[in-house]
């Protein structure tokens, strides 16, 4: 195992009965970098994090964190990592400061130093004013910040953030991103799972795209964008009733493209410069008026669509295997 890599997995696999939640995953996080693990709900992201953070053991494959094997050297791994899960790991009845003090005491930090560390973290996470309030009175964003602070009490060298901003409003999300950037600037290696493509784009140095337990793409955000030719054509007819006509037209002329009809517009991933002019001619011929017709660089969202054939952001449905992998252990 290379010292340059804080996290390395080889053929990492987790089965729950017949369900293969994580299927032969190879991934690498360079020391001091942010690895984004991107995928929809139920893709197996949380299961990967749980194995790497020594909460559950792989069915097959190996992984090392900070150079230590996650199964045979779990105690050493635990002394290096911090974990912020999808569900806040703070005690709601305790105040913010007590929560941090408690973790410090658990880690064997002397009382006075633990209290100082707690206050330091509260200040850093803009929670000083709420430090003596019970965590249950915190807003969603404050709770996540406290949770992140709790995972940092022991100054972990490697931090796992499992969907740290799911359910947060854009402002709280932006604040959390800034905090993560500060940590990374300080040398912490971060493995971040997310179903938000923008989040991976914003924070990650490298991205691993996961779908149904398998790695379907790896690379830097820019590499992933260029992987599929990188261009997206968006067509929006003035009259939504004409959407079908337009998509029929696209399908007839370019049967190899797979147009996505969504929110009153049609999106097509294109590589060929000739597509746009020829479609423009067709549409004018039919007398279809457009409110939007432009070619842009693909966002990660479109990359995901191209790679998997389905959209990434499915906010409402939660796969039970993703959140609570306690089935038939």
């Amino acid at each position, binding site marked *: 195992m290379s010292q340059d890599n804080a996290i390395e997995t080889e053929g990492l696999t987790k089965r729950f009965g017949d369900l293969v939640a994580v299927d032969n995953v190879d991934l690498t996080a360079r020391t001091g970098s942010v690895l984004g693990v991107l995928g929809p709900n139920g893709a197996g992201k949380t299961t990967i994090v749980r194995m790497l953070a020594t909460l559950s053991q792989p069915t097959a494959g190996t992984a090392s964190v900070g150079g230590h094997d996650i199964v045979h050297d779990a105690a050493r791994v635990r002394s290096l990592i911090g974990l912020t899960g999808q569900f806040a790991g703070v005690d709601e009845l305790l105040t913010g400061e007590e929560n941090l003090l408690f973790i410090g005491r658990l880690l064997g930090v002397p009382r006075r130093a633990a209290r*100082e560390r707690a206050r330091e973290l509260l200040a850093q996470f803009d929670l000083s004013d709420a430090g003596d309030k019970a965590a249950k009175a915190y807003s969603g964003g404050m709770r996540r910040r406290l949770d992140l602070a709790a995972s940092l009490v022991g100054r972990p060298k490697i931090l796992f953030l499992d969907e740290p901003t799911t359910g947060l409003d854009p402002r709280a999300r932006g604040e959390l991103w800034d905090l993560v950037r*500060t940590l990374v600037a300080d040398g912490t290696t971060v493995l971040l799972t997310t179903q938000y493509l923008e989040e991976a784009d914003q924070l990650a140095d490298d991205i691993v795209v996961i779908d149904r337990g398998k790695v379907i793409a790896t690379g830097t955000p820019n590499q992933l964008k260029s992987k599929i030719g990188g261009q997206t054509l968006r067509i929006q007819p003035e009259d939504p009733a004409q959407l079908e006509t337009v998509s029929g037209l696209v399908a007839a002329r370019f049967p190899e493209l797979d147009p996505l009809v969504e929110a009153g517009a049609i999106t097509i991933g294109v590589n060929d410069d000739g597509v746009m002019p020829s479609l423009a001619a067709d549409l004018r011929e039919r007398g279809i008026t457009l409110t939007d017709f432009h070619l842009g660089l693909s966002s990660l969202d479109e990359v995901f669509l191209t790679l998997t054939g389905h959209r990434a952001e499915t906010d409402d449905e939660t796969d039970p295997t993703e959140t609570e992998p306690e089935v038939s252990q």
Partner: protein
Amino acid sequence: MTAATIDIDIETTGRPNPVDTVRQTLSMAWRQMVRIKHNPFELVDLSLSPIMFLLLFVYVFGGQMAGSTSDYLQYVLGGLIAQNAIFLTMYTGTGINADLRKGVYDRFRSLPIARSAPLAGKIFADMFKQVWSIVIMLGLGLLMGFELRSVAGAVLAAVVLVFFALAISWVSVLMGVVADSEEKVQIYAFVIIMPLTFTSSAFVDINTMPGFMQAWAKVNPVTHLADVMRGLLSNGPIASPLMWTAVWAAAILVVTAPVAMAAYKRKMV
């Protein structure tokens, strides 16, 4: 990050040693005590049922049971304290069951601490509730006219009770770990504890029971515990019931603790 003013280095080379385990257990117990500090109603909540039981048993059944309520109070207080202690252990199981589902246990699992610390801390802190309950019941009993044998007897009774509760908490832990909801833990506990405590000497003289019931009541651990409480607080033999209570506690501990611990470790991984 701001300048690191506090030096913390928790990088360990291996498993936590026994001293660390004890310290972590105490930290876990501290968390439980702080929870009570922030939610004192929990103590009121767990005082209500013993207060009600004591008042109802003495003033409703007392006259018929022993001829006078004061005589029955003298008999039943020890039994009620024993019964309540056993009921209280149920909260250890329900608490662990609830905690295991929450993110906070995931955090514990990711920390370099002994796997047993969260569990041991919870059991340890729950002993505070045991002491609290015996104080409440004894206090109310004294107000109702209970004649305490001696203060030393009361202290000893609390010690015996805590040791017995420590042992049988493991039954509750086992139920808490394997049950898939808090409600199920409560149902299991109710179905076991209710008949167990009633088929004992806690409330009545077992000589009034039919033969088959007497045979069971004579070996029932609750009988021995109730008799010890009665002996230490009021009057009656102490040595023999104390010995049997200890034997039962040891037997329950030896059988259930390893099973519960194994089930718990499977959950903790």
